């Protein structure tokens, strides 16, 4: 597997990114904020409204460094994408299968199977690690229900039925979510998933984690020559990276949800790191966002053994591994797409 390089997060508003030799220079007005060699970078991710020189965009596109612009609150705005990798054969196969709802269902099924299997395993892990803190029988019951959904999902031939099963399984899983918050219960409670805007602390954290993950998955897909915008479970909608959302399904729980729970349970993020607007919208403060991003970056460096490839990689490379496996399936090397199944 290739090496995982660093991601540069730029959070100072009104900063400007420019290319200088083989390095990126970040300035704000007259202030020189930093300078990093490009060859160490895998991605550059900016928050807030800042500029980047065309020369830098050019250099990033050439070197396969993804350059992403997010709003201050972490909403995706734009990404600099270089020349699509030349693999037209792969992309045509991707489109052809996407046009067939039958074929789409076969691939989508595996995304959702892994999503539910991973959710189930998150619950199982909780019962094993914190039997004194959570309602074990309730968790076991929901885990058993998810097992039943898994059986059904494997048989599904139809996208609508699949979406139905996914929704029901997600309801069961999120019913346990609040119980997995073991610390700082006054500041963090989960009732239901909400966004646009998130109206409680935990939804603000989940939204940011999902955005960062979506950005990584999009970049990984495009890196192996797939079109991040043409999906199987998520159908085409202008401007939506449907395939990235598809592949993300199986990674949401194991990467984003667990990360958010850890931030709270280890008190890395506290109630002080949030700011509530008059309308109830909740934002992370600059400090809070910095803590979030640093922890996210460290998390990416943690090792695991990929369950299908049986190869030691970092968590940060999981989206890349899945993108490659999907591409190899579409090109006919694998009879089915092997999703990421965590245990």
């Amino acid at each position, binding site marked *: *597997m*290739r090496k995982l390089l660093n991601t540069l997060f730029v959070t100072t508003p009104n900063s400007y990114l420019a290319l200088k030799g083989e390095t990126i220079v970040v300035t704000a007005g007259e202030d020189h904020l930093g300078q990093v060699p490009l060859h160490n970078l895998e991605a550059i991710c900016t928050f807030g409204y800042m500029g980047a020189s065309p020369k830098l965009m050019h250099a990033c596109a050439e070197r396969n460094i993804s350059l992403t612009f997010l709003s201050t609150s972490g909403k995706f705005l734009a990404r600099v994408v270089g020349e699509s*990798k*030349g*693999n*037209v*054969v*792969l992309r045509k196969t991707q489109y052809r299968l996407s046009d067939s709802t039958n074929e789409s269902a076969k691939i989508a099924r*595996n995304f959702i*199977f*892994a999503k539910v*299997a991973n959710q189930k*395993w998150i619950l199982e892990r909780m019962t094993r690690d914190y039997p004194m803190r959570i309602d074990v029988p309730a968790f076991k019951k929901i885990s058993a229900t998810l*097992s039943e959904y*898994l*059986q059904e999902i*494997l048989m599904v031939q139809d996208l609508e039925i699949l979406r139905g099963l996914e929704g029901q399984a997600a309801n069961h899983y999120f019913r346990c979510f609040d119980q997995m918050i073991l610390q700082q219960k006054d500041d963090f409670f989960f009732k239901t998933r909400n966004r646009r805007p998130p109206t409680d602390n935990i939804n603000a954290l989940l939204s940011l984690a999902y955005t960062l993950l979506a950005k990584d998955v999009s970049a990984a897909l495009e890196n*192996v*020559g797939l079109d991040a915008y043409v999906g199987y479970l998520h159908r085409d909608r202008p401007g939506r990276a449907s395939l990235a959302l598809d592949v993300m399904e199986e990674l949401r729980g194991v990467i984003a949800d667990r990360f958010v729970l850890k931030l709270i349970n280890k008190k890395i993020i506290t109630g002080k790191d949030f700011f509530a607007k008059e309308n109830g919208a909740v934002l992370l403060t600059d400090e809070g966002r910095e803590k979030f991003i640093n922890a996210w970056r460290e998390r990416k460096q943690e090792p695991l053994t990929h*369950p*299908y*490839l*049986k*190869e030691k990689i970092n968590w940060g490379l999981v989206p890349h591994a899945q993108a*490659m*496996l999907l591409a*190899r399936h579409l*090109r*006919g*090397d*694998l*009879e*089915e*797409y*092997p*999703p990421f*199944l965590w*245990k």
Partner: protein
Amino acid sequence: MENNEDNYLMLSGIQHFRFCQRQWALIHIEQQWAENVKTIEGQHIHEKADQPFIREKRHNKLIVRAMQVRSHELKTTGICDVVEFIEDEQGIELINEEGKYIPVPVEYKRGKPKAGQEDIVQLVAQAMCLEEMFVCDVPKAYLFYDEIKRRVEVEITNELRDEVRFIFKQMYNYYDRRHTPKVKPGKHCKSCSLENLCLPTLIDSTPVRQYMERFL
């Protein structure tokens, strides 16, 4: 389609194909590429040869660099690092040159002479292009290896010519179907820069269905 050089396969691809059919397909059909130390070294060595505007005359030799060649028979186009035209009574006449010459391709390679034939078939294909373009015989050619700083002579035999024809036929067979052959993993995977794109280990991995059913 016929005789349209735009649709011809790249000559250098024969080296990839002889080394590993899947490597060739990943590069030439799927347009995938990755660098490693070896490919960078190779580029560096070719910088020397890749100077199309330098032309040298030494005694009985005319040395030309980065010469574009093609063969309608093989349906391939490519570039010879160096072609030496050696004065020879048995040779052919060249425009703007006195005397008669035999073309001799020289291909620059990193490392040492290899156990496999991949460098040789590439050189033979170049020789066949020159034979077709100059309407002459090219009886020998050279591989220059950077590590030993010496050239190795290769005799262009009819067996080798036939093998090159056969390989191009196979290449076109895959190319027309846009088919990437399955992995045949081996020691050669270790020196392949595409190892991480090819995933040679997939060949002996568990069937996906079985892998998923373990989680039921």
